[in-house]
């Protein structure tokens, strides 16, 4: 049986891992290569690196980090942030990443998903969706780091992303991000029910139970950052707990 995946997310700024709340109050945390190696030892199933600055001169520092991570660890990892073109995708895959996530650029030009999945294969093109519940109860897609409401329905966009060739979806619930009150189950489940590709829940993990909740709802993977970075939730203990709840887990590195 396919194991549910635990995915630490590392936001990288100028070659360092940083952490903010609701996309703000950014703090310096660690060296990304050292942190990646630690998560690998602890049994993380996959890693995500977001380049949160992505200015041109800092792009090369980031690509260097990607290559060092690939050298250090033997588990899959995804790279996102600032991916706008086929060339951007090629450069991170060439640096050693296994998957690339596209977000705002795909909203502005959905063909990017089709062109990139045709060229590199669906397995490495991940559509990352930043979504928030609006006053009328719908979930809208936001872009530009969560600053701009596109008015697009998040569930429809997820379906369109799958049809265009995305091999996986990350659902970032902006309301719950950094709040540690649990994943946004309603939205994530609606999306998971609407598509037939794996879905990664993101935003809101604070307790062990938040992970078991999201997995028992049929979500394939759960992403989190600060609870892992600050060792509030050690991955081996988390996996032990989830396993005891009957959730299939890969239990060693």
């Amino acid at each position, binding site marked *: *049986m*396919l*194991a549910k*995946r635990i995915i630490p997310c590392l936001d990288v700024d100028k070659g360092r891992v940083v952490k903010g709340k609701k996309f703000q109050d950014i703090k310096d945390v660690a060296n990304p290569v050292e942190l990646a190696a630690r998560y*690998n030892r602890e049994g993380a*199933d996959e890693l995500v690196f977001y380049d949160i600055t992505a200015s041109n001169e800092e792009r090369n520092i980031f690509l260097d980090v990607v*290559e060092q991570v*690939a*050298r250090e660890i*033997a*588990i*899959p990892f995804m790279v996102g942030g600032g991916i706008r073109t086929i060339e951007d995708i090629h450069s991170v*895959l*060439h*640096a*050693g*990443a*296994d998957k690339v996530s596209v977000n705002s650029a795909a909203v502005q030009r959905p063909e990017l998903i089709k062109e990139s999945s045709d060229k*590199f*294969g*669906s*397995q*490495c093109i991940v559509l990352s969706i930043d979504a928030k519940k609006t006053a009328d109860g719908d979930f809208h897609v936001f872009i530009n780091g969560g600053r701009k409401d596109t008015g697009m329905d998040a569930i429809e966009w997820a379906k369109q992303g799958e049809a265009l060739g995305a*091999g*996986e979806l990350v659902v970032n619930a902006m309301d719950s991000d950094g709040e540690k009150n649990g994943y946004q189950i309603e939205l994530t489940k609606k999306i998971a029910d609407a598509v*037939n*590709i*794996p879905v990664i829940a993101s935003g809101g993990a604070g307790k062990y139970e938040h992970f078991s909740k999201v997995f028992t709802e049929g979500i*394939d*993977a759960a992403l989190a950052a600060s609870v892992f970075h600050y060792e509030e939730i050690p991955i081996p203990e988390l996996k032990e707990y989830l396993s005891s709840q009957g959730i299939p887990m*890969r*239990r*060693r*590195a």
Partner: protein
Amino acid sequence: MIAIIDYGAGNIKSLQFALDKLGKTSKLTMDPEEINQADSIILPGVGAFKDAMEALQRYQLDTILKDEAANGKPILGICLGMQLFYEYSEENGGCHGLGLLSGSAKRISDKVKVPHMGWNILQQADQARALLNNLGDEPYVYFVHSYAVDGLEENTLVASADYGGRVPAIVQNKNITGMQFHPEKSGDVGIALLKNYEESIS
């Protein structure tokens, strides 16, 4: 030296780093002379079957691989590289493969999510093989694929995974070995598998 066939197939770096960890020298190449001189060959692969076959044919690597296979040189196919060993794939309207092994690649059942993406457990087939030594309990390995091999010769199956039916995960017929998952992305279990494989051919 291990020749990793260079035909534009995705992320090769991780594979090279994994071989480095085992102290194995590898070279990404499409040069017939270098492939001929190599002790063994790895055929990597991600992406679509047809594109991969066309790329191999463009550089006449298909003929080289068939010749080397016939000469008994050990060849390891990883992910799509394993599927290319077979006679046929139904991906994108169908395409013939290298035909080094009998069987074909068929789409994974839509009863489960496709691609088969993530960590799944290797289940040993009937006969125990040295390839599976020292993997420990619950050997999880990392899969990413939408097509799986069907109709293979049963005595070539070394291990399988369960996902919408039986997914052949490791196959072996004499000097030809295939791994449907990515050993270079499968943590310690993957490194152990590569080590077992390298020991078996050296």
